[in-house]
């Protein structure tokens, strides 16, 4: 059985990438082709696989080969149910979680090669370039950071004095991000709030973690002012070391979802954390 692996860098249009990728699949002559599930791959490889008569599965977190049999592990229902399955169809394209691509290739003893996407095809699409999300300047999403810092809707709620303190919350959050180098995540309830959109301009729906957001991979995660409901916490599936700060001792984090829950006011705690990190 022949297993090939391709790396695909840069950006491309669907119209041009699909024929190029389809040609590469055919030319590889492999039974199984591994690719990292980057945005470019996710956009164009499915249609390329269909065009090349190949099967495709995405978001693979493990690939096991035993003789001619290849099994794939991937999550269904957004990190809720882990499935293990195989297919007889060949060629079989397996797009892995991008963070796991190198490890999966190494475990199978496959050396990835760059895929040349240079097929000629006309397109009505012109790529303008890469732009940062949000309007707060520097991106607050840092996939390589060891720490995920999640802000929940509690940052917008009335505090002990009966008033909201959005500017203070924004300064505390951005201060912590600057000092710790953490990547910023958010609960859905926070990014959906119009008042948060105005006050927290460093945050967008791209920061959302959970069932309808991202499932980032960081070694540690610190949640603040977030209740830890299941749809949010499924986005923490790959964050192993978890701590939370919340005023409610019975919140979701206390129900076996965090390692440590500090029952405290996150405003006060994070301000002091910022002072200590200074």
């Amino acid at each position, binding site marked *: 059985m022949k297993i090939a692996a391709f790396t695909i860098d840069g*950006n491309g249009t669907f119209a041009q990438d699909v024929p190029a990728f389809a040609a590469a699949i055919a030319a590889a002559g492999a039974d199984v082709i591994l690719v990292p599930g980057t945005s470019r791959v996710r956009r164009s490889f499915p249609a390329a696989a269909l065009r090349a008569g190949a099967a495709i599965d*995405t978001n693979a977190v493990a690939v096991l080969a035993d003789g001619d049999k290849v099994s794939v592990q991937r999550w*269904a229902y957004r990190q809720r149910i882990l499935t293990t399955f195989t297919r*007889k169809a060949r060629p079989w394209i397996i797009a892995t979680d991008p963070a796991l691509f190198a490890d999966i290739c190494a475990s199978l003893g496959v050396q990835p090669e760059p895929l040349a996407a240079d097929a000629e095809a006309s397109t009505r699409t012109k790529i303008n370039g890469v732009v940062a*999300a949000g309007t707060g300047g520097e991106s607050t999403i840092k996939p390589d950071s060891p720490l995920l810092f999640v802000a929940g809707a509690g940052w917008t709620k009335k505090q002990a004095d009966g008033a909201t303190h959005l500017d203070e919350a924004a300064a505390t959050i951005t201060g912590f991000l600057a000092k710790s180098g953490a990547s910023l995540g958010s609960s859905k309830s926070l990014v959906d709030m119009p008042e948060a959109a105005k006050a927290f301009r460093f945050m967008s729906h791209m920061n959302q973690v959970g069932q309808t957001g991202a499932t980032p991979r960081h070694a540690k995660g610190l949640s603040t002012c977030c209740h830890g409901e299941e749809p949010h916490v499924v986005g923490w599936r790959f964050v192993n070391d*978890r701590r939370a700060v919340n005023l409610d001792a019975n919140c979701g984090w206390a129900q076996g979802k965090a390692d440590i829950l500090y*029952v405290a006011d996150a405003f006060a*705690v994070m301000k002091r954390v910022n002072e200590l990190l200074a």
Partner: protein
Amino acid sequence: MAKPLNMIVCGSLVPDPLQTLEPVQTPQGPGLKNEQMLPSVLDPWAACALYEAANLAKLRPGSKVTLVAVGPKAKLQQLMMTVAQKAPFQLVAVNAPAGGFTDAQETATELAKAIKAMPDLDLPSTLLFGGCASASRDAGVTLQFVAEMLGITEFFMGVDELKLADDDSFTVLERIEGGKYLSSTCAGFPVAVGWATGSLPEPPNNPQTGMMNMRGIMPALMKAPVANVGIGGISYEKAEVPSAKRATVVKKDMAVDDIAREIVEWIKG
């Protein structure tokens, strides 16, 4: 003057995210325990696609939004009771299983078949919308399959913004790595767009819109063709919910200073 738009939104139901999901074995492959009883919602990303389509339709009077859904008829009918109140649309339904274990290509084949069978289809001027992935299968491949089957060569994935000009050219922002967007401009239709969350809030329920929609939705459900969507060529070996429950230590009555110090040590450790 800008022309009316013809928008087709692909989307179906998924279990309410607040429900506990437990896999079970069925003769057709893996399924969910009490699947028929689980409350459903319109897939969150497909819902974003529907709301974005409805918003664009408001900007171009005379525009049409059609939701094409592959799912069990009875559950689709239940779902429509709420979704129909969100925005004006027509429904094209296909009565077939929908879930996290069905094969994306079989679903895409039925979607493409249903779209091709639409009597007033004008493909060259169509915007094909859907979610960038589903909250059930989460494969993120179905819409690309449908685009390929329909011969649509312009496709955008993980879109949060689409700005349309009067000449039908448009600029999109697609989510890419590292919290960034890829900005592209496309010179007209047809186009397929896999929406991420977009930027619109969920519209409030409007009973009048609901009643108007249901006049077309009920007949569409009555005549929904039955399709055989299954697990395709997949042989499932296992479907399990890993036990990931932690022994949470709840620290109450700690001084703010002590908590902060412990967190800083943990971050640096």
